[in-house]
């Protein structure tokens, strides 16, 4: 009798740990999905391997942090303002750096993106210093549900992500501007022939992409820390996700994001956190070895 009780108790604790890890994975997956969504639009539709996406994500985190701590804005207001500012920076980057390379091979854009990373990351390092910035606690309330601890911030992250995904889907499917983006994705020349301004599509895609990245950064920074190199691991994972899901595929980016988040948190919880990059990139390498164009990519 005693044995079974003990056994059950251990089982429950393990179950709780498992669910906790899954929840963590979903939270991480939300952030990855948001970053990957912007990247899949830029890469899949415009064929710009915008490696600087992670640097812009970092800029979004710093801007939100500064607005919230130095200017004393409310967390949500800071997030909104940072998003608008980053969308503007994204448009600027597209106009100044990627537009002149429009007819070149993607490799050139890739190199320009590396240049942008150097400018943003090293710039941040010089302006803000290398130390980790801790966000003042917002939404730190925790709930106890069936032996699980869930903080409000995590619930906010997941809810906001789901809302944004629904909004993005509505924007692309229901509005004319969204339709122009989808048309460009399907057939660039066809879209041009229909009188769609590809330059405008590029502008909107960049504004959307960097805006989403900025929101993702603002959402996660109260949990993780803010530092100049924070974009690096995230952008690598975002690239893994869009390749995992297939280039330019929006459902691919979302599902890929959640897969990666779950792989990372489960492998971290049960095997080792030190090798978390090995596991997530291992998934990619395995998928590519079996299906070289990703899960949802065209054959």
């Amino acid at each position, binding site marked *: 009798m005693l044995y079974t009780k003990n056994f059950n108790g251990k089982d429950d604790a393990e179950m709780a740990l498992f669910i906790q890890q899954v929840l963590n994975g979903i939270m991480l997956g939300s952030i990855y999905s948001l970053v990957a969504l912007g990247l899949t639009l830029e*890469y899949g539709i415009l064929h710009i*391997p915008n490696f600087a996406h992670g640097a812009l994500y970092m800029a979004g985190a710093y801007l939100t942090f500064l607005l919230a701590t130095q200017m004393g804005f409310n967390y949500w207001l800071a997030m909104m303002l940072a998003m608008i500012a980053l969308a503007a920076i994204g448009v600027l980057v597209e106009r100044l*750096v990627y537009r*002149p*390379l429009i007819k*070149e091979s*993607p*490799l*050139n854009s*890739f*190199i*320009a993106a*590396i*240049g*942008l*990373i*150097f*400018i*943003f*990351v*090293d*710039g941040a*390092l*010089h302006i803000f210093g290398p130390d980790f910035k801790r966000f003042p606690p917002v939404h730190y309330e925790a709930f106890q549900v069936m032996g699980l601890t869930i903080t409000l911030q995590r619930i906010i992250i997941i809810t906001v992500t789901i809302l944004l995904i629904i909004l993005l889907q509505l924007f692309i499917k229901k509005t004319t501007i969204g339709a122009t983006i989808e048309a460009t994705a399907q057939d660039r020349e066809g879209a041009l022939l229909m009188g769609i301004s590809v330059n405008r599509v590029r502008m909107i895609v960049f504004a959307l992409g960097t805006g989403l990245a900025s929101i993702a950064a603002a959402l996660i920074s109260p949990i993780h820390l803010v530092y100049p190199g924070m974009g690096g691991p995230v952008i*690598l994972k975002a*690239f*893994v996700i869009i*390749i995992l899901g297939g*280039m330019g595929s929006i459902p691919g980016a979302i599902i890929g994001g959640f897969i990666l988040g779950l792989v990372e948190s489960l492998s971290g919880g049960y095997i*080792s956190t*030190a*090798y978390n*990059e*090995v596991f997530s*990139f*291992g998934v*990619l*390498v395995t998928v*590519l*070895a079996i299906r*070289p*164009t*990703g899960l949802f990519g065209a054959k």
Partner: protein
Amino acid sequence: MRQTKFSNFISRNLAYIIFIIVVATIPFFVSSRFYMHILIMCGIWGIAAASMNLIMGYTGQVNLAHGAFFGIGAYSTGLLMLKLGINFWLALIMACSITVAIGFFIGLLAFRTKGSYYAIGTMCFNVIVTVIIENWEGLTEGVRGLLGIPRPTPIPFPFGKEINFTTMTANYYLVFSFLILTLLIIRRIVNSMIGRSFLAVRGNEELAESLGINTLFTKLQSFLISVFFAGLSGGLYASYIGFLSPEISDYHVTFEILIYCLIGGLGTMAGPIIGAFSLTVISELLHGMAFPRLVAYGFLLIIIVIFLRGGIMGGVHLLAANLFLKARK
């Protein structure tokens, strides 16, 4: 007859002969240890850049795992010398073989993909290698790094003398003889039938395949040769610097080598060397200053990509073509 053959040889290899003479005489004019150090670093990065040029410039495959292979070569050399006490020369050869062996498996997997997928895939391999080096503490000492790697073993010489590598000048000659050897081998490869098949794959992979070139084999060939030299430069770095940390295999190293190639001009023999030399000098000289070096690098990269696409060598070719046209008028 003999005379013309000789003068032909001279005129075809003029650039190399001048380069060798300049390289051989520099130590007679430069005595400062600091400048010698910069020159040695130029040579090491020159080998790395030249090897990346083979796969990227001549075969057109954006291999972003190069830093990892540099790191694997460096760590293999260091570990073989430190932990097993193997002689430097044997360790260097073994390290290059290890790098090629690892490269073979990575290449087989990575070449299932093409274009951007290939670029990102190889970059993932780079990250995986760095993470493994960082965490496999039993072997690599992890983030503490590998300390006290000995300098190259002296070469015994008849009559009881030996060449030892304690002085900067000796190390300089060591690195530069490897650099020149690398350049000559790569040049020989590029000008051979194998090199032609590399160029064919770069130009149009489907077309090359339809002409009967086994593209997977060709790409793998180019990849493994390039990886071999990356390992070589890593090995030289390990024994010259004497200290290794996991950052040496980081993808930032890949980017750094990539920038050397791009600024000098991809797909030319001289380009990567010019790029590696000029940027190593600039960055070493800027080291002491409180100046955001990477920010300047970033602007430089963007400007070059937008305005000077062929790098320095591309600009030189353009200038030469212009002068030629003017002269004809």
